[in-house]
């Protein structure tokens, strides 16, 4: 199962990279969201999948899945939410002020 998930996250990250390289600012934001999805899956997968009960001591199991990556990912999910919100607003404010969300047209001057 891990190998399947590694490939899945690899593909998600590849798609995220592709979205990064497009001209539309909105798509770049989509890329950020997808990238964090891919990385979350990868971190969770690499710690081993379904190796025990959920990390709740009330389960009284012999083995639990690793709680540390879960805590890390939980933090990451919330942070990426904040990031995405900020980026979205940045994107549409850019559009409002410049009248375009085409990154080719948003290029700065060569001397900057």
């Amino acid at each position, binding site marked *: 199962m891990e190998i399947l998930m590694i490939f899945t996250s690899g593909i998600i990250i590849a798609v995220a990279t592709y979205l990064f390289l497009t001209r539309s600012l909105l798509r770049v934001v989509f890329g950020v969201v997808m990238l964090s999805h891919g990385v979350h899956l990868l971190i969770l997968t690499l710690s081993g999948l379904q190796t025990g009960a*959920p990390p*709740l001591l*009330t389960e009284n199991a012999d083995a639990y899945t690793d709680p540390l990556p879960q805590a890390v990912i*939980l933090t990451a999910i919330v942070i990426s*939410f*904040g990031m995405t*919100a900020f980026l979205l*607003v940045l994107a549409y404010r850019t559009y409002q002020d410049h009248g375009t969300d085409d990154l080719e047209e948003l290029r700065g001057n060569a001397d900057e």
Partner: protein
Amino acid sequence: MKTNFLMFHTITRIVSFIVLSFSIYLFFAGHNAPGGGFIGGLMMAGALILLYVSFDIDKIKKVIPFDYTTIIGWGLLIAILTGLNSLLFGDAFLTQYFEYYQVPIMGEVELTTALPFDLGIYMVVVAVALLTILSIAEDVS
């Protein structure tokens, strides 16, 4: 636009009430079962967003007259103060304590300093989500 959303409003009232109570449950359950400050906070934010969406921003603002920016501040302050608390006992910053008490009706109850810390997080999460969404929603240009 004078459209009648009777069904929608009625369902929203019931659902948001349930979601709100569930959010509070999740918050308290956090230490021992899935839940906690983040999840509870997001759930609360979800419920409130539902209210804002189905009714009107101005109406809900009258009902919930909070300034979310201030709530962020309070949340951070509470979290930091619970952290500072441990310094008084000579422990490292953010050391948490817990104790079990026997309460007549409820039986054994656990009190932890992690709870106020989580409350701070809860407040920040709720306020951040709503502040962001309301700012965008109110932006008419």
